[in-house]
Every structure is written in C-alpha cells, then in structure tokens.
C-alpha cells in the first residue's frame, strides 16, 4: 500500500502544529493559574476550568509528541514524558477511587488550587484523568506495535478522540452527562478541545502506519477515507446542533425535526456517496489507463531488453534478480525463470581478470547508491558452468519518480567479439607493418600538416636518416630539394583547400633529397589514407637512379644500332622462328630487290630467300647463330641470286637477326679480273671451240655468275653477250633452278629456259666442272629440246594408241579363239560319230579322210589353246612371289613320265632352286621347255634331261637334253610364233610354245637363248631377274 509522501509530510506538519497547539494551551493555562488570570483558567464559568495539573499534563503530552515527531534519540525523553502523563492520570484516578488524597496539585502548585470551590479543589476531573491515562500511553507507545500492523497508540488516541468528541458534543448540545460524572468535577470545554487536538496529533504523528496509513495512502481507500471522514465527523454534528436549536426555538416540532434531520442526513450522505463514486470511477479509469500504459511500457521494455546486445540483469531493492534478458541468460548460463528471486551476486559472479579475486558486487554498489554507471572493467564473469567471459559493464540504481530506490540494473558486455576484432586488427596492423618494412620501396606517411608520421626501413636506407630523427619533422624540409619545396607546400595546401591534386594516384618522377644533401631521381606515387580526421598521405618512393642509367644506356645502344641499321652498308634482317621476316633495313631490301611494302605485307620469307642447301638435308635456312659468317646466295623474287656474306645471331628467344654483306660488287670485280686474266691467258682454240659448239655454252664461276658465253647462247636466249656476263646464270631459267654450280656437277637436267623477250622454252643442261687456275668453273651446255620433246610426245601418243589397239586386238582374238573352238568341236565330234556309227560301211580311204578331219580339228584346238596361253601371258597380271623351281620341274617331269610310262628318260633336276616370280607362268615355262626336251628325245631308246642353274651373280637356268637338237642357223626363229624347225610329221607341236616361253621370260625381266646342234641335243638358257 503506497502512501502519498507529500500528504505524509503535510500530515507530519499538521501533527506538529497540533502538538504545538496542545503545548501552548497547557502552558497558557498554567501561566493563567500562576498569575491568576482567570480567562486562561476557565474560558467560561459554566464550561468548567482546566486544572493546573491538566495544563501540565497537556504541556507534557505536547512535549512528548513534539519530541517524537521524527523517530530518533529524543524519542526516549518523549516516551518518558508520555509515561509521566499516564502516571499523573493514574494517580488522580486512584485518588478518586480510594478517596485518599495524595495532593500532587498542592505539592506542585501550592495554594493556588484551593481557590477552587469544588469538593476536590484543584484536582482534575476523573474523565480528564482517564483521558490523560489513555493519551499518555498513546504518547509513550507511539512507535510500539502489538501484533501485526496493530498500533496501540492509534487505538488509544482514537479512544481519547471519541471520548473527547462525546464531551464536546455534550457541551454543544447541552448534555452534561457527556462531560461530567456525577458530582465529580466535569471536564472543561477547552480541555476537551485539547484532548481532541492531542488525539489528532498522535494520529497524525505517524501517518504512514496503521490506520493512518490507510487514510493517507494513495489508494482509492485512502482517497475515499480522506473525503468521507470530515463529512462523517461534521455533518451529523452540525445537523444535530441545528435540529436541537430548531427544537429549542420551538419553531419545529420534535417529529418534524427528526424527519428533517434524517432527510438532511440522507441528502448529504447520498450526495457525498455519489460524489465519491464519480471520483472513484474517474480514479479507476485513469488507473486502468495508467496500467495499460505501464503494461505497454513494460512490454516495450521487455522487447528492448531481449533485443539488446548486452546482458541486462535487474534486481529489486533487496538485490534479488528480477529480470534477465537472453544475452544475460547466455552469458551467465542461468535461465531467467531459475534466476528470478535469487541473490543477484549468486547469478553474476564477477572476478578480476588478472587475480581472479572477487569484485565488489555491482548490485550492492548500485543499491548503496553508488555512482551511477560506474564501469566494470578488466573483469571476468564466471558462468554457471564455470566458464569465464571477459566483460565490461556498469550498474546503476533504479529509483522511482519520487526518488525511492526500487532496485538496481546491471549491464554487462561480452568482450569476446571485441577481443577477436582487436586481435584481427592487431594482426592486420602487424602484417601491414611487416609489409611496410619488407618493401623495397621507401614508404613515408605524412599528415596534413606535412609532418612525417611514419617511414619504413627502405626509406631510412635510401634517404639516410633514422626513423627517430625523421618522425615529426616536415617532410618538405627533409626529403624534397629546395627548388621543389614551394611546389610541395602549395600542392598540399591546394588539396586541403579544394581536394584537387595533380599528384594523388599518379606516378610521377622527380628528384628527392638525401640526408647528406645529395639528390637522386625517384619515382613517386602518393595516395591518401582514408580515415576519420584530417587527411594523411602515404608516398611510395623508388630510387630510379639505376633505372635511368640503364634507360640511358639502352637509348645510346639503340641509337647506335639504329645508325648501323640505317647505314645502308649492310643488310640487316630480323626473322621470327618460322622464318618470316619481321624487319629489314633498306639496304637489305635493295639487295634482294624487294620493297618495304612486301616486307610489311609479310611476303618476305627467309626460307625462300635462303632455301636449305644440299640435297636431302634439312639444314636450317641459315647457319645457326654463333657460327662464323658464311658465304651464301640469296634467292631474289625475280629469280636473281645475290652472293652475300651472312652472319646470324639469336636476337631473342623467338627471333634471329642476320647481317648480309652484299658480295655482288666484289664478285663482279673478281669476275672482271678473272675474265681479263683469262682473256689474256686462255687459249684462242678454246674460244674457237666454244663458238663452234652446237650447244649454247655458258661458263660460270662457282656462284653461278656468268663469265663466258658463246654465240649460240646469244641466239638461243636473245640476250646480247654483254647483258649476260657478270649476271647470275639463274636469270636464264624459269623458277628455282637447281644450283648447277654446287649440287649437280656432271649431271644433265631438263629446265625451262627464259628468253630475253620473256618466252619460255625447254632446255637440257649438262653441267660439268672445269678446274682452272682460278678455281672451279662450271660449264653449262644448253640444248634447246623443244623439238625433241615434241617428237617424244608424238611417239608416246602413238605408242599409247598402239597399246590400246593391241589390247583390243588381243581381247578380240581371245574371244574369237574361244568361238573357234565350238565349230572345231562339231567337226571333230561328228567326224567321230561318222566313224563310230558308219565306219564299217565306209571304205578305208573314206575312213582315212574322216580321221584327218578329226586330227585337223584337234590340232586346231591345240593351236588355239596355245595361242590363248600366249596371249594370256601378256594380258594377265604378273605375280611376284617365291617359287620353288625344283619342285615345279619335278611335278612337270612326273606329269610327262606319267603320260608315256614306257619311255626311259632320266631327269636330273637340281635341288634348291628358288626364284621370285609368277608361279603359274613359270610352270608354263618349264612345261614347254621340259615338254620340248621330252618330245625331241622321243626317238631315242634312252635319254637324259637336265634342269639346273649356272652359278653367277643372277642365276642362269638351263634345260638340257640329248635329243634331236637343231641347226643353230635357225636359232633366231626359235622364239617366233608358229615357227617350227621340224616337220609336223617328225614331232608334233603348235609352234607357239617357245614364243610363249620367250614372252614369259621377258615379262620377268629375263633373257632366253639356246645352244644346239643337230642330233646332239639342245640347251635352253634363261635368266629371271627376280
């Protein structure tokens, strides 16, 4: 139950005023008694007098209450006075009850009290005495408690108030019994008032306790009580008084008065109740609004707390945990529900980071009213699980609007993320510092005033001063030559003024000053360090002395090379790895008769200009770099040759550079000298011979430069002699002619000659060396072979046509030969049929004729077969494979022997004869040759046939027999078709066999010939060229 503090203060004041009133009343009456001032003793005779002892007791009561206004040391005296008052009352009551007079009054006040005309003069009335007992006790027990929330002082005071109120009402309404008991002295009116005021003083002295607390509280109850009490006290009293007056005046009867009294009471209290009800309703409404506002505020506070990044713990005034936000839960390991109500120091265990000793509780400090937001630093929070968190934080007391301490709040921040960030920052700084130090370039940092802030080791080294000496000094004074300082200063000023800079972010070259006063060329880049606060600048400075020196050297070297390149004395070519010429000077282009356009177009190719020399070699187009210069000929695009002295060197990884010294002039001079010398020395006969030669003859030196020509040459090529002499002979032929002077001495080549008028013609060139005293010369005999070539072409055409015709003819004869066989078969067949079926009816002559018809047809069949074989030999394709001739011969021999088993023929066949050739055709050869031998030995009883080979480079085979032989004078007819050396009657045969053999041997690239004599056998020799 909250009490209204201001009201409490006011009531406290009112209590003081009441006490003072009572004190002043008592003292005034006492003074009146002492000085015998009647007015002060008794206000009005019928209203009774206040006895001196009562006055004293009043003064003592007032003192007791005054002294106890504030709880403190003076309270004891106050309480003692209270007890004394109660004792006075008690003694007086005892006097009345026992009738024994103790006489305190006289003891205290002497005779003054005797003037009183009462039975007990000067003695206070018994009612007053009881009042004083109660009042004294109330004052003595002002702060005492009896049981829970019961304050005896209050009840005592209320009893005093009620009794005195009755007495007062008695005075007001004229009811004596209410202020006097029997014959005892009555209580005086102002005594009654004194008691009322004193009771009020007691009640008001402790407005925040007991019943008064209810009345003074800010609750609706307190509100209601404060409104109703005055009305409840005053309204009945006033109405009762009015009613009595009205009754006494006789204007109003008793019943009417009572009715009016009741009505007035009803009206007053009804109005009062309604008024209060409205006030209560308003109060409730505003309270509900306030509650809503509070709830909303609490919710937003809760959300705020939950979303705050720091741990927040609040406590009540006793230091018990009230709220914790989630961060606090996470940090401490306590759930809010578990922690609520616990001692905050149990939840927040905070120790010193270094010593781990406990720190004073922040809550305790805040609750003791310690300085608000006093920081907690270098501390660790020990979580519930024992884990430690580095924290910073603060605590503060919570006070309400009236300044009453309600609790404390502690805010803690987990320093782990911060420490990590600090660690990262520290490492980053360390890295940067390392990079800075490791840099080969000087790095200098300058602030906006131009003072050096930082510089690295390279800067110390290159500028020649120590860091300590440099930092804080003006950069302009230290590092910039005097001539540039003003510009530097103005530049910095301009940048600071309008942000314009001609330097920032660019690479500039300038001079820099060393500590020893020397100046060096440097390259500088400046960048601004973006940070809060005034700008700072970092300059990177590189000493470029060496670079400049190198650049100058390079420039000098380049200009030397350029002079050489452009001198025109020597041809210079740069070619890439594929031989394409990338660059060449004018001298070279002149030399090879090419233009710069051709060069730019990429048409110049080193491989064409200097083709690989020597047959079958893949030598590089020019000598490998590093070798001695060599003499070579360059092939110009127009066919000319240029003798040069060629040196080659590697330019870089992909290109080579070649230097070519034109040797033409020298060659011409040499040729002229040689020519002169020769003309003097040479034999006139040689010249005559040359002129007489049927062929055009050109004598060149070994580079192909023409030295001598004859008249035929002039005629053939249409050039006057003077235009040829001293020129490359290659000019007289089209295309890339073989290098006669080098490669093909002694050979004959066919080329295309070119006349002066540009027309081409076929030539045959015989190249032969001439050793002279001047060295090797080359004689080229040139013959115009245009006509010969034409004749050859005609011949070739004729031959091709003939071959075609022969082919057709053979195909035709083949076909015819087949078709011829059919009628032969009919002739033979039907002749046979005649002989068989009608032979007996015919005479011998007719049978003889039929037999001849049959024989003729058979012969013709054989003839046709032989012809077919012969033609087949030239038509079929020739195989080339190993053929076992020995085996072949044995098979043929066996075949022959099998055909005529009765004959005695001794075959001697050499073993191991093997030959590359066509097995089918070679069988035909052996069949014919061995068959011939078999045939021509048929007249003998016994005969010998040999097959063998004569040793030699290529095998010479032979077939030898000891048969009929032949006359060698007909040997030339042996191999002609249809030629027979014997009568048909003597030996059978077609006359085609040897012709066939001859053709087969020829087709094998061999030869065949025969040795024989009549009746002495024959030997046929043949070779086969594998």
């Amino acid at each position, binding site marked *: 139950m909250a009490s209204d503090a201001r009201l409490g203060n006011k009531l406290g004041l009112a209590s003081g005023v009441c006490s003072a009133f009572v004190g002043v009343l008592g003292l005034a009456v006492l003074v009146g008694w002492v000085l015998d001032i009647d007015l002060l003793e008794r206000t009005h005779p019928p209203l009774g007098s206040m006895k001196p002892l009562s006055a004293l007791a009043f003064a003592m009561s007032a003192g007791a209450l005054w002294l106890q206004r504030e709880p403190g040391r003076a309270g004891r005296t106050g309480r003692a006075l209270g007890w004394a008052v109660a004792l006075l009352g008690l003694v007086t009551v005892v006097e009345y009850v026992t009738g024994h007079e103790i006489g305190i009054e006289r003891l205290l006040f002497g005779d003054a009290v005797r003037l009183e005309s009462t039975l007990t003069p000067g003695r206070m009335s018994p009612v007053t005495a009881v009042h004083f007992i109660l009042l004294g006790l109330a004052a003595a027990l002002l702060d005492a408690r009896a049981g829970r929330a019961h304050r005896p002082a209050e009840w005592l005071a209320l009893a005093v108030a009620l009794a005195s109120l009755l007495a007062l009402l008695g005075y007001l309404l004229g009811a004596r019994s209410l202020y006097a008991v029997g014959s005892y002295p009555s209580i005086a009116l102002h005594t009654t008032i004194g008691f009322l005021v004193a009771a009020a003083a007691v009640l008001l002295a402790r407005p925040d306790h007991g019943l008064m607390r209810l009345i003074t509280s800010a609750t609706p109850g307190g509100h209601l009580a404060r409104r109703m009490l005055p009305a409840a006290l005053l309204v009945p009293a006033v109405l009762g008084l009015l009613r009595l007056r009205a009754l006494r005046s006789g204007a109003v009867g008793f019943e009417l008065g009572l009715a009016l009294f009741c009505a007035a009471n009803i009206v007053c209290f009804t109005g009062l109740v309604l008024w209060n009800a409205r006030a209560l309703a308003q109060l409730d409404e505003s309270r509900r609004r306030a509650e809503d506002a509070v709830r909303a505020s609490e919710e937003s506070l809760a959300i705020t707390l939950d979303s705050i990044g720091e741990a927040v713990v609040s406590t009540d005034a006793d230091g018990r945990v009230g709220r914790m936000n989630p961060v606090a839960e996470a940090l401490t390991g306590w759930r809010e529900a578990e922690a609520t109500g616990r001692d905050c120091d149990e939840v927040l265990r905070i120790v010193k980071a270094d010593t781990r000793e406990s720190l004073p509780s922040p809550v305790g400090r805040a609750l003791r009213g310690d300085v608000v937001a006093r920081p907690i630093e270098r501390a660790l929070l020990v979580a519930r699980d024992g884990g430690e968190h580095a924290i910073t934080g603060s605590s503060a007391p919570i006070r309400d609007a009236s300044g009453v301490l309600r609790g404390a709040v502690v805010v803690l921040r987990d320093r782990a993320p911060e420490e990590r960030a600090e660690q990262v920052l520290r490492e980053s700084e360390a890295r940067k510092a390392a990079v800075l130090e490791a840099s080969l370039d000087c790095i200098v940092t300058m602030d906006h005033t131009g003072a050096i802030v930082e510089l690295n080791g390279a800067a110390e080294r290159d500028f020649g001063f120590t860091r300590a000496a440099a930092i804080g000094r003006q950069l302009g004074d230290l590092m910039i030559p005097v001539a540039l300082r003003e510009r530097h200063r103005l530049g910095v000023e301009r940048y600071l003024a309008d942000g314009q800079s001609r330097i920032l972010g660019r690479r500039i070259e300038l001079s820099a000053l060393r500590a020893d006063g020397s100046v060096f060329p440097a390259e500088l880049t400046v960048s601004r360090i973006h940070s809060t606060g005034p700008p700072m600048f970092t300059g990177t400075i590189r000493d470029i002395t060496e670079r400049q020196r190198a650049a100058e050297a390079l420039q000098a070297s380049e200009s030397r090379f350029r002079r050489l390149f452009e001198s025109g004395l020597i041809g210079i070519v740069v070619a890439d790895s594929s031989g394409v010429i990338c660059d060449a000077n004018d001298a070279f282009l002149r030399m090879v008769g090419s233009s710069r356009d051709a060069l730019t177009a990429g048409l110049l190719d080193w491989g064409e200009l200097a083709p690989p020399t020597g047959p079958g070699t893949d030598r590089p187009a020019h000598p490998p770099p590093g070798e001695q210069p060599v003499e070579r000929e360059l092939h110009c695009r127009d066919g000319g040759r240029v003798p040069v002295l060629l040196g080659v060197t590697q330019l870089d990884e992909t290109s080579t550079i070649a230097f070519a010294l034109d040797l033409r002039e020298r060659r011409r001079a040499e040729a002229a000298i040689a020519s002169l010398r020769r003309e003097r020395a040479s034999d006139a006969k040689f010249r005559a011979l040359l002129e007489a030669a049927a062929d055009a003859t050109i004598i060149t030196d070994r580079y192909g430069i023409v030295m001598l020509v004859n008249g035929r040459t002039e005629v053939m090529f249409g050039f006057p002699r003077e235009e040829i002499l001293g020129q490359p002979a290659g000019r007289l032929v089209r295309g890339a002619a073989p290098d006669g002077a080098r490669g093909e001495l002694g050979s004959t080549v066919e080329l295309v000659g070119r006349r002066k008028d540009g027309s081409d013609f076929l030539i045959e060139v015989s190249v032969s060396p001439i050793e002279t005293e001047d060295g090797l010369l080359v004689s080229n005999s040139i013959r115009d072979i245009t006509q010969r070539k034409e004749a050859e072409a005609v011949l070739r055409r004729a031959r091709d046509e003939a071959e075609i015709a022969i082919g057709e003819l053979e195909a035709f004869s*083949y076909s015819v030969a*087949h078709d011829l*066989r059919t009628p032969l*078969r009919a002739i*033979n067949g*039907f002749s046979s*049929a005649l002989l068989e079926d009608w032979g007996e009816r015919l005479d011998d002559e007719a049978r003889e004729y039929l037999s001849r018809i*049959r024989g003729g047809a*058979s012969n013709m069949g054989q003839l046709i077969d032989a012809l077919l074989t012969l033609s*087949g030999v030239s038509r079929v394709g020739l195989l080339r494979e190993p053929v076992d001739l020995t085996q072949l011969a044995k098979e043929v021999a066996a075949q022959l022997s099998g055909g005529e088993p009765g004959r005695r023929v001794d075959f001697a066949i050499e073993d191991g004869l093997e030959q590359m050739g066509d097995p089918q055709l070679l069988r035909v050869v052996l069949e014919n040759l061995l068959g011939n031998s078999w045939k021509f030995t048929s007249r003998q009883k016994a005969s010998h046939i040999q097959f063998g080979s004569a040793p030699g480079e290529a095998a010479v085979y032979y077939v030898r027999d000891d048969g009929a032989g032949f006359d060698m004078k007909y040997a030339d007819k042996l191999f002609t078709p249809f030629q027979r050396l014997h009568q048909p009657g003597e030996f059978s045969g077609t006359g085609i066999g040897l012709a066939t053999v001859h053709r087969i041997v020829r087709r094998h690239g061999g030869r065949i010939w025969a040795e024989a004599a009549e009746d002495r056998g024959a030997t046929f020799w043949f070779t086969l060229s594998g």
Partner: protein
Amino acid sequence: MGERKFILLVEDNKDDELLMLRALQRNQIPNEVMVTRDGVEALDFLFATGAHVGRDVSQLPQVVLLDLKLPRVDGLEVLRRLRADPRTRLLPVVILTSSKEEADVMQSYALGANSYVRKPVDFAQFTETMRTLGIFWLLLNEIPPVPRVASS
C-alpha cells in the same frame, strides 16, 4: 515330270547339244535331259514362270549343266539368280563352257558353281568328260532335299 533324276542342259549351240546327248548316250547315262536354249528359258523352267507356268517347282534336276555364253541372260547371271533364290540355292550347277579364261573360272566359283568343266575339242575327250560328269553328279552325288518353300 515324275520322281525322275533328270539333267537340265542350258546350251544354245545345237551341235554341242547333239554331241552332249550322244556322249551321254554312249556312256549309258539313261537320265532324261531337259534342254533350254538360253538363260531366260532356263530360269523360266526352274522357277515355273513364263512358258513353264504351272510346272511343279519342287521337281528340280539332278544337276544343271550351264554354258556361260548364252543369248539374253548369260550363264553367270543365271547362276547368280539360282544362288539368290532359296529354292535353288543348293542346286548342283556345273559350268560347261569353251572358255578357260581365269576370270570366268574365278567368277563362276565365286557365284557358287559346284564345278567348272571345259568342253574339249576332241570328241573322245569330250565323251570321257561327260562320262565322268555323269557318274559323279548322277550316280555318286547325293543332292540336298528340296527346301520347303511356298511356290509363287
């Protein structure tokens, strides 16, 4: 024709035909000889088309003696068609010709000829040849059963 072993002779030359029949006769080869004059006729006979519509296709000769040089469709083409048809794919075919050209021999065998025989000019040899052929193809050789193929 009933279940008789007959010979199909494809020959355009009447002389040769006569001589061949004589040679068969002299060799006591009694089988009937069906003679066709060219390739078209031979094919018509074998596949029962054209002039031979209605003939029982399953009645195949014991052997076909086939000349190469024939009017209209030549012997090699006849052979090719016989070998392309399932009904005559396995029919024994002997090439009997004047040619001894290697190309002809190779082609004939490549197309599936069972034998290649050159007609000799000499009648004695011719008779001998025919005798050999007759003995082999008509007496010794077992021909494959006629494939069961629906006739068209």
